[in-house]
């Protein structure tokens, strides 16, 4: 891929997102909790086909402090159904959706397996990136190095409370993209897009050339479109997971992601 050759050290995830951005697309990364419903792998493939640029797959943890009620419930359901990190990654590795996969989980699962072993499991499952919300910049070094050795890009989070010098250090160290947290709070749907979301996006875009995606509190196609004026794209989790918790399957999930895609594309055409 030409864009991946252009910047030395750019990984598979970042390359794919950059090439989408260069093609004039606003980026869309839906989140699905692994194991939340028996058809979760079909959901991953369906949302990939419906216009996702990458898919974030949650590996459930017993104590998800960055997550609100929807993803807590999804994690609890998956764990109650017997989901394990190894099992989910084995299943995931047997599918190859046409877009990069990003694992979202908490640090203890990597600690328990050992950083190298956990990173290797992600890589073997075809996962290109990792998001660990309880692993801030200052603690990220050893994990990010182990992950980097097997080609897994560690995406760091930036928050509305992060001061500017630290924001620059986060952008420097983040791989794949920079995940801007749109609101002070945990994951979950919000009626209105917080003003902090656009502000976060503008602050990040002013200091980094890496793809900037905003997540947490981005729930509707309208909110995604509104935000895409400032960011390279959005991550949408709870709104999609709620559809699955309420009995929806691959079709309903794909329809929702299709509407998000259309809204983002409409913004570009407008």
């Amino acid at each position: 891929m030409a864009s991946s050759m252009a910047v030395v050290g750019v990984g598979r995830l970042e390359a794919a997102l950059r090439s989408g951005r260069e093609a004039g697309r606003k980026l869309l990364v839906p989140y699905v909790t692994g194991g939340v419903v028996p058809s979760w792998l079909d959901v991953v493939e369906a949302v990939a086909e419906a216009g996702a640029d990458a898919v974030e797959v949650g590996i459930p943890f017993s104590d998800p402090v960055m997550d609100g009620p929807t993803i807590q419930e999804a994690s609890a359901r998956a764990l109650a159904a017997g989901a394990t990190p190894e099992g989910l990654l084995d299943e995931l590795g047997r599918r190859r959706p046409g877009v990069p996969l990003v694992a979202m989980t908490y640090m203890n699962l990597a600690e328990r397996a050992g950083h190298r072993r956990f990173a290797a499991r992600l890589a073997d499952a075809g996962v290109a990136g990792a998001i660990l919300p309880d692993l801030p910049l200052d603690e990220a070094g050893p994990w990010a190095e182990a992950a980097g050795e097997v080609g897994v890009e560690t995406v760091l989070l930036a928050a509305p409370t992060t001061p500017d010098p630290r924001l620059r250090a986060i952008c420097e160290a983040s791989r794949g993209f920079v995940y801007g947290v749109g609101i002070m709070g945990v994951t979950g749907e919000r009626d209105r897009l917080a003003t902090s979301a656009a502000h976060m996006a503008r602050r990040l875009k002013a200091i980094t050339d890496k793809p900037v995606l905003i997540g947490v509190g981005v729930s509707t196609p309208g909110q995604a479109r509104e935000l895409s004026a400032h960011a390279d794209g959005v991550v949408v989790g709870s709104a999609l997971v709620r559809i699955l918790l309420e009995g929806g399957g691959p079709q309903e999930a794909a329809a929702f992601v299709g509407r998000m895609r259309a809204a983002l594309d409409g913004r570009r055409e407008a």
Partner: protein
Amino acid sequence: MTAHPPGLMGPPGRGGRFGEFGGRFVPESLVPACQELEEEFASAWADEGFRGRYRAILADYAGRPTPVTECHRLSERLGLRVLLKREDLTHTGSHKINNVVGQALLTARMGKSRLLAETGAGQHGVAAATAAALLGLECVVYMGEVDLRRQALNAFRMRLLGAEVRSVTSGSATLKDAINEALRDWVATVETTHYCLGSVMGPHPYPWMVRELQRVVGDEAREQCRRLLGGADPDYVVACVGGGSNAAGTFAGFVDTGAALVGVEAAGGAAMARGVSGVVHGMRSRLLQDEHGQVLEAHSISAGLDYPGIGPEHAYLGSVGRARYVQAGDDEVLEAFRLLSRTEGIIPALEPAHALAWVVREAGRELPRGSNVLITLSGRGDKDVAQVMDMLDG
């Protein structure tokens, strides 16, 4: 006795490390608040004015210094010389008041108006609500639904003191989930709110800060023991450990002496005996977890020790051999609870009854006859009598 690294129980290493343990594993949204708190505490703790206000409240309001009581009848029975550090005699009835007074003063110093707390048995929740009332702060306490049922009176006490008590139904609906919920609240409210963590756990600077705010227990006890023991230190210093704040405060006063330090965990919540290194609630420490890294629930008759982890400094003190961590089971704890009540007229909380139970079991065995043993009686048993009555009747 092996040689120990110098400077034990001083300031933590870079990034809040105690050896390989500790650190700051929190969402980015909370990192700036933890950094601010670290700076604020360091400067307050070096400020004689702040320390003076803290000491004055502990003296005039909380009833410090607490005495060390020599247990004559119990000593005779066990063939030991048993001393109790009486944290049960403080205002609100446990050592938790030492920590919340310091953190409430810090909250005001940072210009914040709201306190968050988690609670298991309710002692820390009551203490936090008390300090908030004293300093005119808003207070929200998260408490697991299961614990709320076990400790309904403490929840009522918190409400009487003006705090809002929020029931936590997620996960196992106990202490660990109350901490998760408090952290989630804090992620959204960090600009106006201080999270008043109740133990020597969580992200840096909490393990260090809470230990410093509790070291008054050990500092007082060391001087009191020397007066009682003709200038000598106890042979053994014993305290119960859930997160480990009363033990940390006690050990801080004796870490530089020749005393053997012993932490007693609940057998069903023994992070030191059966936990492995892990990351939860902002810290790397020893943690009860399954083979995949999912956190396990702890089980104990004392809600205050129902915690699957342990403070990172304890994990470190254990790893370098300066402190030992042992376990006590529910039955022997109930026996010790009754024994102290009958022999000394002191009804202990179930948490320190663990420390007592180990001493009773090991008297004349691991603890040679005639040893001088200090036990921190971290709280009084009033909160537990209804539960114990049910268990003894059942």
